[in-house]
């Protein structure tokens, strides 16, 4: 197994080096924008994967936390002059706290009805921000005052800095997932995902574990909300609590492979690359992107329910068997 480990570390090192060097080589802002989207949605997918992938609590309401993060930092910035860097953490805390009552309600239901209840919570939050103008600008939303180059206020000229922030967030999300995967919590999560009643029967405190992982997931999703608002310099209830954020968070994980470290990343690369290709091909006409996403999703569910990661694992194991069960033989071949 030593050989495999070294190969893994080596390819990870190459990947990190390429990602770090990328903005130095690629100067086209359209391409950088695509990479920022990939990093951002991979990060949201990683956050979703903690609760949706490992614990199999299939949330379709992560836009709630995305929006809370976006609104918290923006309100702090515009009304109180607080830097979005601080606002980002505050947004994460607000979302984590909000996940307590949301989870308290929604975890009473299982499976599809959990998903529906989470949709409802995100929709209620959107309606609240639409309806109560005193709270935050109502339906019109607001633009973020452009201060030019102001790193302390999370504003930069050019897109390179945003790229590195998104890359840092994704790294954070993956590191947290890696740690959780290898801790007792990771095993409890998988046990809950496999069969919640059985997990409880052997002494796993399922409500507590679900509550804790939901908080972590909400916290991370909110960071993405702050970042996105700062990146596009605009916020309104429809972008902040958009259902498509909830959809994409779940979709990238399912297509890539739920409950795996790299699944959401691979899923995002596939979906966002397809979407970018389609846009340059057909223009950004309404419906094309989600039509293709839904076809990919359907194909994955019907033929590869374990996602692309499951497919890779299958092929890999078949090759190991074909080479007499030795990993080294496969690598040498």
């Amino acid at each position, binding site marked *: 197994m030593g050989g495999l480990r070294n190969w893994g570390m080596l390819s990870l090192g190459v990947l990190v080096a390429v990602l770090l060097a990328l903005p130095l080589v690629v100067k086209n802002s359209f391409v950088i924008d695509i990479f920022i989207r990939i990093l951002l949605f991979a990060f949201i997918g990683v956050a979703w994967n903690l609760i949706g992938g490992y614990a199999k609590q299939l949330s379709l309401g992560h836009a709630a936390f995305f929006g809370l993060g976006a609104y918290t930092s923006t309100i702090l910035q515009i009304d109180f002059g607080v830097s979005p860097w601080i606002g980002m953490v505050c947004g994460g805390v607000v979302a984590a706290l909000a996940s307590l009552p949301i989870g308290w309600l929604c975890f009473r239901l299982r499976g599809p009805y959990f998903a*529906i209840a989470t949709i409802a919570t995100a929709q209620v939050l959107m*309606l609240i921000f639409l309806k109560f103008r005193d709270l935050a600008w109502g339906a019109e939303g607001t633009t973020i005052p452009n201060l030019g180059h102001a790193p302390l206020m999370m504003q930069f000229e050019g897109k390179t800095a945003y790229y590195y922030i998104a890359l840092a967030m994704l790294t954070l999300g993956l590191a947290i997932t890696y740690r959780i995967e290898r801790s007792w919590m990771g095993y409890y999560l998988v046990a809950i995902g496999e069969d919640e009643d059985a997990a409880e029967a052997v002494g796993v405190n399922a409500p507590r574990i679900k509550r804790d992982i939901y908080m972590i997931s909400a916290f991370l999703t909110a960071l993405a909300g702050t970042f996105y608002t700062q990146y596009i310099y605009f916020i309104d209830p429809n972008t902040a609590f958009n259902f498509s954020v909830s*959809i994409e968070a779940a979709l990238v994980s399912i297509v890539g492979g739920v409950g795996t470290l790299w699944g959401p990343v691979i899923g995002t690369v596939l979906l966002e690359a397809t979407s970018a290709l389609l846009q340059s091909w057909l223009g950004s006409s*309404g419906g094309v992107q989600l039509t293709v*996403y839904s076809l990919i999703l359907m194909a994955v569910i*019907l033929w590869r329910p374990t996602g692309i990661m499951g497919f890779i694992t299958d092929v890999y194991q078949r090759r190991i068997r074909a080479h007499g069960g030795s990993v080294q033989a496969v690598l040498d071949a």
Partner: protein
Amino acid sequence: MLEILAQAVINGLLIGGIYALVSIGVTLIFGVIKIVNFAQGEFVMIGMYITFFLFTQFGIDPVVSLIVSMPALFVVGVLVQHFLIRRVLGLNDLPQIFLTFALSLLILNLALMLLTANYRTVHTWYSDEALHIGGLYIPVAKLIAFVLAMALSGALWVFLRATDLGKAMRAAAQKPEVAMLMGINPNRVFCVALGIALALAGAAGSLLMPFYPAYPMVGQVFVLMAFVAVVLGTLGNVVGALIASLMMGVAESLGIQFVGADSGLIVVFAMLLLTLAIRPSGLAGGRAR
């Protein structure tokens, strides 16, 4: 004041009849096949567009177009069950949820591509007519929709109670293994159940058309209502879904009347979350699972 209240209740009941057709479909599918159909609203949308095209191309009245929209969606239901849903039965939650969810996304976005996001309306001779009874205002188109919706719900109830196929359906819902031993082919029963559920969604679409615009996203309003009604009325319970839908229509209408025009949905979602907090198993007290 009392008159305003009565008017709001009537408005709510009338639209609640349409919600009932959608909810009964969702609850029937859940009861028999044990899956939640996220695409139910999109089939309402298809029903609306069928009705719209029959009206604009051939001048066929929306009520008459029921005889096209219902069989057409019945066939769609049989195909969806046989070619898609059958393949994920017995698997875990994830494929079951996301298959119909993907179907919903697919139909919605195909409609967006092919039919554009424009609102389509149908104007019949009774679209602007209304009955005035003791100071109350009852639009004829909504009354027709309500009466036919109730008639269809009643017909379904009789079908489930009195016919062999209906009894087979209820048997397959309660004990699929035993039903199979008794010679019931579950896939055939499931096909019929999904067909009926989609036919009801198509009927809802046709009946809506004289007073409601068709657009690709229209189904989402109705499916959310239906999900809430189905939870309220206890999953899989047809009569529960019917009563809950009428209640939701009234709640929404009261919200619009007394809180503000765009607060109807807030009231409905608040009802859902409140139900979850107080009685997660639904008003009829069945299982929440």
